[in-house]
């Protein structure tokens, strides 16, 4: 019985989420190792041992400089076959999801995703996840090995322990089709401006605003309430609002005292970024929008009617 954890890195540092999964895996299975794939990642690898990896396998090659999934599938598939790992775990991310999906096909291995907890080990390993837009909780398992799991972002804390693992280089061979996709450009936003993570009150706008100009009414409400404006991925992708304001799996995790969502559907990847908000109020014209399932107060209606009126009421009270 042995477990392998994929370590995702950005620049020189390994993602906290991966170290969290590694810490958890090491707790469940004493025989846990990790794999790090990249270019010039030797130093980062040495640190990973402290989070519970007996061995950190490293494929260090120029060919892995770009964070593309398919060459990494090749490396991990071979490592799993050579060493006989029976469980492979990932901290969910855009990259890790693509790797895990590819690996599942390559190894004919079961993949459970969106795991928020893990219990037991070996054949008794059980993952906890939600399903149907978080309306059902499920305990899921695997009927064969290797078992693949994608852990929901932020589920486990990275816990350092004393033992330092060893680092071992592994081959960096890739398949032909795996290297066909190439990185053309990476535009990595530096976070500037006030951080939405610090605001007590967040007014979040989604695609229901209809156009970038729609954010005007949210900015007025936020300023009347002394809060900040946040957004969804659909809005950011469309260029309506800056990336730094995006809440969710690929954006920021926030836990304000009050979250007001206007024209936000409440997709699971958005929800994971705001579910720890103390109070959630939502406005959506679709009575079936998933966000109503986890709101304290939900109003079914048009945000263009409701938001400006609410702003007036708040202003009156504040005088």
């Amino acid at each position, binding site marked *: 019985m042995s477990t392998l954890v994929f370590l995702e890195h*950005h620049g020189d540092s390994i993602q906290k989420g991966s170290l969290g999964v590694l810490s958890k895996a090491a707790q469940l299975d004493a025989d846990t190792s990790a794999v790090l794939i990249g270019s010039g990642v030797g130093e980062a690898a040495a640190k990973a041992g402290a989070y519970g990896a007996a061995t950190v396998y490293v494929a260090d090659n120029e060919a892995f400089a770009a964070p593309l999934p398919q060459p990494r599938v090749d490396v991990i598939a071979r490592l799993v076959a050579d060493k006989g790992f029976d469980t492979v775990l990932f901290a969910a991310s855009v990259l890790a999801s693509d790797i*895990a*999906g590819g690996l599942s096909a390559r190894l004919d291995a079961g993949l459970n995703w969106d795991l928020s907890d893990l219990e037991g080990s070996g054949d008794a390993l059980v993952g906890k996840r939600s399903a149907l837009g978080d309306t059902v909780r499920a305990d899921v398992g695997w009927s064969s090995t290797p078992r693949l799991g994608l852990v929901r972002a932020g589920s486990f804390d990275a816990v350092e322990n004393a033992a330092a693992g060893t680092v071992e280089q592994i081959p960096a061979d890739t398949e*032909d089709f795996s290297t066909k996709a190439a990185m053309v*450009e*990476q535009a990595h936003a530096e976070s500037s401006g006030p951080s939405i993570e610090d605001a007590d009150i967040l007014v979040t706008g989604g695609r229901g605003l209809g156009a970038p100009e729609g954010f005007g009414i949210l900015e007025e409400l936020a300023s009347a309430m002394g809060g900040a404006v946040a957004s969804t*991925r659909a809005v950011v992708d469309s260029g309506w609002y800056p990336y730094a304001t995006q809440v969710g799996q690929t954006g920021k995790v926030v836990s304000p005292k009050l979250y007001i969502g206007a024209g936000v559907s409440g997709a699971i990847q958005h929800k994971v970024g705001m579910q720890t908000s103390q109070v959630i109020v939502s406005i959506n014209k679709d009575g079936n929008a998933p966000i109503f399932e*986890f709101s304290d107060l939900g109003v*079914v209606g048009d945000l263009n009617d*409701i938001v400006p009126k609410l702003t007036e009421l708040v202003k009156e009270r504040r005088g």
Partner: protein
Amino acid sequence: MKIAVCVKEVPDAGPSRRIDPTTLRMDRSGDRSLNVYDLNAVEEGIRLRDAAGEGEVVLVSLGASRALESLRKGLAMGADRAVLVSDEAAVGSDLVATSHVLAEALKAESPDVVLFGQQASDGDGAVLWAAVADRLRMPVISQISELTVEGGTATAKRQTEFGYDTIAAPLPVVLAVADSLNEPRYPSLKGIMGAKKKPQETKSLADIGVDPGAAGEAGSRTTVVALSDPPSRGDTIKVEDDGSGAQKIFDFLVERKLI
């Protein structure tokens, strides 16, 4: 350009979604429709075909025989035909089994581009295309918010945890599009009328050369052990806006001492 769009029929969104406690499978008795995220993939397929000025858009799906009804929405939007793999032996397929069946169905089509939506609204997986791409030995790009396909190359912009990446890959290629990529068109009346007459094939596993043991529960590698209700946030208050929606929010916030 031949474009295959993988689509799925799902239970309608909303609180009515349920799991059958005896089979631990999704209760499929309620209203069903095409996964909304697939509409963006269908839309993109139609746009790519029209921009190329030739070719066809084929919808490819695995599901119950009645799923053809949901697939018709894609045909009404402008897709050319539909292929539905429907077989008792494929019921209960997990990711491994589904990717196997879809890959075999796609091989029979030899498309230049395989499109997926960003996720299924029932499973929220966002991993299937990567599995299908591996089986087809094609490059894959996911979470695409901007796309051009020109001169045999797909170039796509996608969001990750760190910002935006632009990735290029030669055809044939598997592309998974984000819901921000485009605005899916509404089918015209003419489109709706014409959809029924477009070719709609239903294939069995045998038709696409898939061993029944590699599909359905037999071909699946994951299991559901138990189900429970999520911890409740307490009572959700849900109201219709009859003109007093803003006042209700205001009163609620005052009561909770949030303003």
